[in-house]
């Protein structure tokens, strides 16, 4: 087992290195530079001073070596080029700890409601509760989040004036964002749980359990749900890593100072250090989540460890 985990960690580091290197050279190959956002051309001397200060006048490969050195010796991703004086590593932690609040609550809520709805739908297959749940699920998957966010904002902040339009720090600030963000997980889990439950309920061992005289409730609780829920855990792994990176659209509309914004803006601004930071951060979370899932699988299923 130890050997297995060690090997996985080596793979993980290798993957991260490849992602970092690829991102670094790709982002330097797109036209423009961190001064492009200024919407105007600054005079030659000003540009030259700026490039020299941030080492952008050096060849790209040298910049990569300097970057790697900083990362490996000091664990530093450098200073943001767009926002002078802000350390990228620190920014990642600050902003992702904001994103995780609405993201986490939405996922938790989505999971609970989604699973419940899925159960209801499965137990009432092809009856009206099933149709209602599946209608909600389709809505949750098809309505774009920016439409939903703008609509909710208009209804609750402008029309009824019950909730603040934008802002951060008060409990009422997260209600609308969570409402927007949880619709998609509700839809996903409702559909997932429903189809898995239907699949499990048609298995022979359920028939056996029923034949033994186990009550309907216990059949669902002990046999159906347990088995139907397993694939959802796999899904959850990826989604948990996603809540740290935030949502660009929802954060923008509700003025939440999360990390989602920087995934898009850093590229538009050619904020090289921030691009690398966000990419490496997202990649590391994802790879780490995969590692955990793999370990979990190998614990559950010995066949995976064999190779």
């Amino acid at each position, binding site marked *: 087992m130890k050997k297995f985990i060690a090997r996985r960690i080596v793979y993980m580091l290798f993957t991260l290195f490849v992602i970092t290197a690829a991102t670094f050279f790709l982002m330097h190959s797109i036209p423009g530079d961190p001064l492009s956002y200024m*919407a105007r051309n600054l005079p030659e001397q000003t540009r030259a*001073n*700026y490039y020299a200060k*941030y080492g952008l006048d050096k060849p790209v490969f040298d910049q990569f070596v300097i970057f790697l050195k900083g990362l490996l010796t000091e664990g530093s991703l450098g200073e943001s080029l*767009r926002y002078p004086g802000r350390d990228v590593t620190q920014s990642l932690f600050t902003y992702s700890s904001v994103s995780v609040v609405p993201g986490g609550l939405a996922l*938790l809520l989505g999971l609970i409601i989604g699973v419940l709805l899925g159960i209801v739908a499965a137990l009432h297959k092809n009856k009206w509760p099933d149709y209602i749940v599946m209608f909600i699920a389709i809505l949750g998957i098809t309505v774009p989040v920016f439409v939903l966010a703008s609509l909710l904002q208009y209804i609750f902040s402008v029309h009824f004036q019950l909730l603040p339009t934008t802002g951060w720090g008060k409990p009422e600030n997260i209600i609308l964002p969570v409402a927007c963000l949880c619709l998609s997980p509700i839809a996903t889990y409702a559909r997932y749980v429903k189809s898995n439950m239907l699949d499990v309920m048609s298995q022979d061992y359920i028939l056996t359990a029923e034949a033994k005289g186990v009550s309907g409730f216990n059949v669902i609780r002990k046999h159906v749900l347990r088995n139907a829920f397993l694939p959802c855990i796999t899904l959850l792994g990826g989604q948990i890593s996603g809540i740290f990176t935030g949502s660009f659209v929802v954060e923008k509309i509700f003025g939440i*100072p999360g990390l989602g914004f920087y995934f898009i803006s850093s590229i538009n601004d050619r904020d090289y250090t921030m691009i690398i930071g966000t990419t490496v951060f997202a990649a590391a979370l994802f790879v780490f989540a995969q590692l955990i899932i793999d370990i979990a699988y190998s614990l559950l299923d010995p066949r995976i460890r064999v190779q």
Partner: protein
Amino acid sequence: MRKKLVAVLLAGAMALTLAACGGGGEKQVSASAGKTVDGNVLDDEQTYNTYLQSEPTTLDSVKGNDTYGWSILVNIMEPLTRVEDQDGKDVRVPAGAESWESNEDGSVWTFHLRDNKWADGQDVTAEDYAYGIRQALDPNSGSLNGYLITCIKNGAAVNSGEMDASELGVKVIDDKTLEITLENPTPYFISLTDTRAMLPMRQDIVEQYGDTYGAEATNIVGNGPFKVDTWTHNSEIILKKNENYWNAENVYLDTVNFKIINDESALYNSFDNGSIDSVSVGSTEWEQRFDSKQDVERKDFNSTGIRFHFYNTQDPLFQNENIRKAFSAAIDRDDVIQTIFQGFHTPYAAWVPQPVSIGDLGNYREIAGDMEDTISGDPKELLLKGMEELGLGNDPSTLTVTFTLGGTTQWLKTYGEYFQQVFHDKLGVNVVVDQNEWGTFQSKTNSGDYQMAYMVWTIDYNDPYSMLEVMKSTAGSVPTFWTNEEYDELLNQASVEMDDQKRAELMKEAEHLMLSEAPICPVINEATVRYSYSYLKNLSNSPFDTMGAQRVYISGK
């Protein structure tokens, strides 16, 4: 793992709730409550809620270069002088400097500072202003604003690192007297005193925080009417009144909240429900919504941005003046405004924006005229003449021209397609629209890999020279590659001429000359419509006003 996550989330939610409770709900009664200004009695609560459309990059005056940071800086820093909008006229008023004078030819300026204190209680000295200027020009400070003040003696040499900062023409005579020597007489020099390049900075604070100076609310000290209280990145900046400010008794607001709202519909929703007290609108759809709103005042402005087309004068086709003129003459500005902007913005054929004034003479545009006469003639004839000169025959349909745009929005696509149609109908040429992301656009135009392009230029400071300088042969700011010795000479004269009347004539001549050769084609002077609730008083009506929020107050909310 799941249990842990739940615990973390619950803890987070609880922390948020606690933080909200700790904030305290009771309304504070302002010290200025009950005062009467212009016949209005001030409310108990003096809080102005406004907004920024983007996060300031930094509050370090020299490292930043964005308008968002500037909106904060005019409130927390005290420039030597400020511009105040007094009944529709831009007047330069004393601020950090109580008075100032120049020698006869305008090459040496002496500023007499008033007694003022930094927000932390220290006295403001001439050295603080001198240090700010040196930082702006220091090639190692990461400054983006040094170019504005290379007119200071040895400024260019210091900025390029050839000379030490001690050689700079900035001299501290005593604690309250600052003397600045210029390379040449510079008539518009006083207009630079309230730009980022000449704001004061505290050397001890800058050195204490190093690279992180100005990156957080706690890492900066100012000497303006307000101080930074909190800065939640990408969410909100809260300013509180600076009791140490020299004119604090005439600052009415206790708090200015700058909400950072990136999203347009969120911004207008915020104004609609009163979360912010005023908003500027740049399109007609929102205009209709707010025009029908009660207790809301509307104010229309011409702002200082010019939207224009520019031509690559090194391109085989656009090297020809008549071809450029043909493309300029083909544009019907009123139709552009109606078709693309639904009547918003002002049709504009000149280069210097409408609100710009020249010294004490008043509005420059009124003196210089509208420049409509710079391009005349039938577009098709101009085109055919140009084609003949270039030996391209007489069939415009053989020409294919690329129109390069910097942006990928639907709006810009419509803009490109409109002109595709116009140039096809009026000139008979084929136009290919090339939409690029902004960075790519800059890279393409700068390297001359384009024919005709579209851009916006906003003036740096309130003098026509700031705009005209952009087109000098050596500037390269708008990459037309157009050069003209006569134009450069006229501007060189204008840059040292101390008589405003003569300067106006020189600049008018230069502007006329440049537009007649058509390296660029101005199309629009940007307009803004500002809506504000009627309880919000004393907002400035000038785009050049640098008073910040110190005159604003709340009455009758």
